[in-house]
Each structure stands twice: as structure tokens, then as C-alpha cells.
């Protein structure tokens, strides 16, 4: 089990069927039923947009898919692993080694330069500092951030900061990248640059992507979209009918 949680073994697992699969997932916060039985299959290498009104349960769904939250009912299977059976330590290992995250803002460590921010996940998973910085530098280049490496987050534009966040999320070569409104605070051009950079990298690496967005222009970069409404994904939308 623990072996599946690390990146090294990930590539050897045959990618047959969905990489991520939710069945009848329910999540409550007190009286609020945020997810009311969600079914969703995500194929390996697929870029999926999750859309839907505010408060419909998109972020809650993402947190359940990524093992951040444990569902109250139903199952989430990632690459053959039933996530809800993992303990907290195993889930955090899974997130560190197999998953990447990008949020709307405020995710970079303010006292670290861009290149240091990108190297953090590598250092956490035991890569030596010199090697980590070398790889982080390479990611700066790939995302068109060549001259921003020594800047602090406060000195970056919103679009640059998001590209640093994308680099940080991808530097460990995750199996699935989760993004919650990654272009939500950007203007059209900066959003386009972030999405182009993101898509170039994930398509080259075959990374699966789940991206929550209100913005149809951002969703249009995905291979398909699902709509979450009142804690549900309409039948036939999330799972291909048998």
C-alpha cells in the first residue's frame, strides 16, 4: 500500500480505466450537505474542467478527490487506492508524492524567492538542495519565468505568481494536478499565459488535471467539463453510461 503512495512506483502501474473515480460521494458540514452523491470518472491524461454555481460543492469535491477531506459516504479511488481507507499520514504522503495543487492566490511562501518556492516540494520529499534548485530553475524556464527566479512573491505580477505556483505543483511530476480557480484573479492575457503554460506541460507529461473554474475561457482549455449543481453532477455527465 505505502509503495503506491510514492512517485517511483506510479509509472509502473498500468493506466487502465479511470485514474480517479468517485462513487456516491457524500460530504456534510453540520446541516449543510455539500455533496449529495457525486459520481465521476476521470481518465488518465485527461484535462477536466469543473464548473457550476457558487456554493454548489466544487471545492468540496476537489478536496474529497484529493484526499484533503474524507467523504462521509461513498468512495474515492485513486489509481487503485481507496483513499478513504488511508489514515491522515498516508493521505499526506499521497498528496506530496502523487498530487499537485494550485489555488487562486496566496499559496506561495512570502519569504522565499520564486525558485526557492518551486523547490520546496522537492526538498520535502528528500531531494538534495542543489539538485532541487537545478530542477526548479528548469521549471522557471519552462513556464517563461527565466528572469523572475530571485524575486519574492510580493515582487511578482499576479500572472507570474500563478505560473510559479503551477511550476511548484508540477515539479514533483504529480499524477494528478488539482487547480481551484487558478485564473480567478487574473486579467484575460495573464490567464491565457497561465493556461497555455500549464497545458503545454501537462500534455507533454501526460498529467491528469482537474481544474475548477467559473471562467468559460479557462474551461475551454480542458478536454471536457462537468457541471456541479446542488452537490451533484447530472447523470451521464460525470460518468460515461455503461
Amino acid at each position: 500500500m505505502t509503495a503506491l503512495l510514492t512517485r517511483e512506483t506510479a509509472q509502473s502501474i498500468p493506466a487502465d480505466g479511470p485514474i480517479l473515480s468517485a462513487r456516491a460521494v457524500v460530504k456534510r458540514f453540520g446541516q449543510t450537505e455539500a455533496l449529495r452523491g457525486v459520481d465521476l470518472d476521470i481518465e488518465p491524461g485527461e484535462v477536466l474542467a469543473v464548473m457550476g454555481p457558487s456554493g454548489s460543492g466544487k471545492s468540496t469535491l476537489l478536496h474529497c478527490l484529493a484526499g484533503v477531506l474524507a467523504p462521509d459516504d461513498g468512495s474515492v479511488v485513486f489509481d487503485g487506492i481507496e483513499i478513504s481507507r488511508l489514515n491522515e499520514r498516508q493521505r499526506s504522503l499521497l498528496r506530496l508524492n502523487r498530487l499537485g495543487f494550485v489555488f487562486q492566490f496566496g499559496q506561495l511562501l512570502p519569504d522565499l524567492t520564486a525558485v526557492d518556492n518551486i523547490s520546496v516540494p522537492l526538498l520535502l520529499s528528500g531531494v538534495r538542495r542543489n539538485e532541487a534548485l537545478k530542477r526548479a530553475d528548469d521549471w522557471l524556464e519552462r513556464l517563461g519565468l527565466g528572469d523572475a527566479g530571485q524575486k519574492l512573491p510580493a515582487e511578482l505580477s499576479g500572472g507570474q505568481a500563478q505560473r510559479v505556483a503551477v511550476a511548484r505543483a508540477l515539479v514533483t511530476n504529480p499524477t494528478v494536478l488539482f487547480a481551484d480557480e487558478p485564473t480567478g484573479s487574473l486579467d484575460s492575457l495573464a490567464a491565457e499565459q497561465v493556461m497555455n503554460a500549464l497545458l503545454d506541460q501537462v500534455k507533454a507529461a501526460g498529467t491528469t488535471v482537474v481544474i475548477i473554474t467559473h471562467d468559460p475561457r479557462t474551461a475551454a482549455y480542458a478536454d471536457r467539463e462537468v457541471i456541479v449543481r446542488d452537490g451533484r453532477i447530472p447523470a451521464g455527465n460525470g460518468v460515461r453510461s455503461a
Partner: protein
Amino acid sequence: MESSLALLGLLCPQPSYGYDLKHAYDRFFATRRPLAFGQVYATLSRLIRDGFIVALGEEAGDGPDRKRYAVTDQGRDRIGQWIFTPDPPNDHLQSNLFAKTIIALLIEDDAERLLDLQRAEHMSRMREFTALKREADIAHVLIYDYAIFHIEADLRWIDLTSARLLELRKDVAQR
């Protein structure tokens, strides 16, 4: 877009052969299919007739693509007038989609579903344009931007209408 004005505008920087003009047009303006030669020459003869361009030094016996064309002062004025006259904003006050939504509510059919079907159709077109845009040169990026923003406007209307369906359904039922 008026292709005759775009062709006239392309002649403003310098005189050009019909053949080159067609290719300049395709480079900037063609999206799905290139402009037909026949249409280029038909347009050019109309522009000559209207005094906006003249044909230069015809080589005897050569076809129309061996002629060079140059803009006249009158043609230049026409272009200046065209580019600095703002287009009227499109009213969009009568939309098919709005009518379908009202009728669906009136016959108590599934208005939500028709909006969902339309959303899927629009998203699919937007995905197509976004993919093309990722491969396009800067001039065509602008063309796709324009199309994408207009599809987006419809999508925003669809989302808002979907959020307002409950209220709309009550209102329609009372009339």
C-alpha cells in the same frame, strides 16, 4: 466584416498584384476557407468602377492576376472614413435562445435542459476555437479571441438565466 473594404485597405500601404492581395487577405482575415480568386477579381472591378482603385500598367494578354492595383485618393478617404466610424453596438435584443426558454417555461417543459444543451454546444465550439488559437499566429489569435469572447457572452447569459429560472417560471405562470 466587409471584405471589399478589407481588400481596399490592404492596397493602401502599396500597390499590389491581385494574386498577392488575395494571399495578404488570407493571411490576416481568412479563417475557415481562403477567399476565392473569383471573388477577389469581382471585388476589384467593383472598386475600379467606384473610383477607389486603378489598375496599373497592364501587360498585354495577361490575365487579371498580372495586373497591379493602386488605391486612389478617393479610396484612401473611404478607408479613413470606415476605420474611424464606430460600429453600432449589436442590440441582441431578440434572441432565439430567449424565445426557446420562455416557450419551454410556458409549456412547462424542461427549460434547464435546453440551457444545458446550449451550454454544452457553446463550450464545445469554444474548445475548438481555443485549440485553434493555441496553434495560431498573432493575427488569427485576435480573430479567435473575438469569437471566443462573443461565445462567452452567451454562456454568461445562459448561466445567469439558469440561476433565474425559478423566478422566471413563477412570473411566466402568473401571466
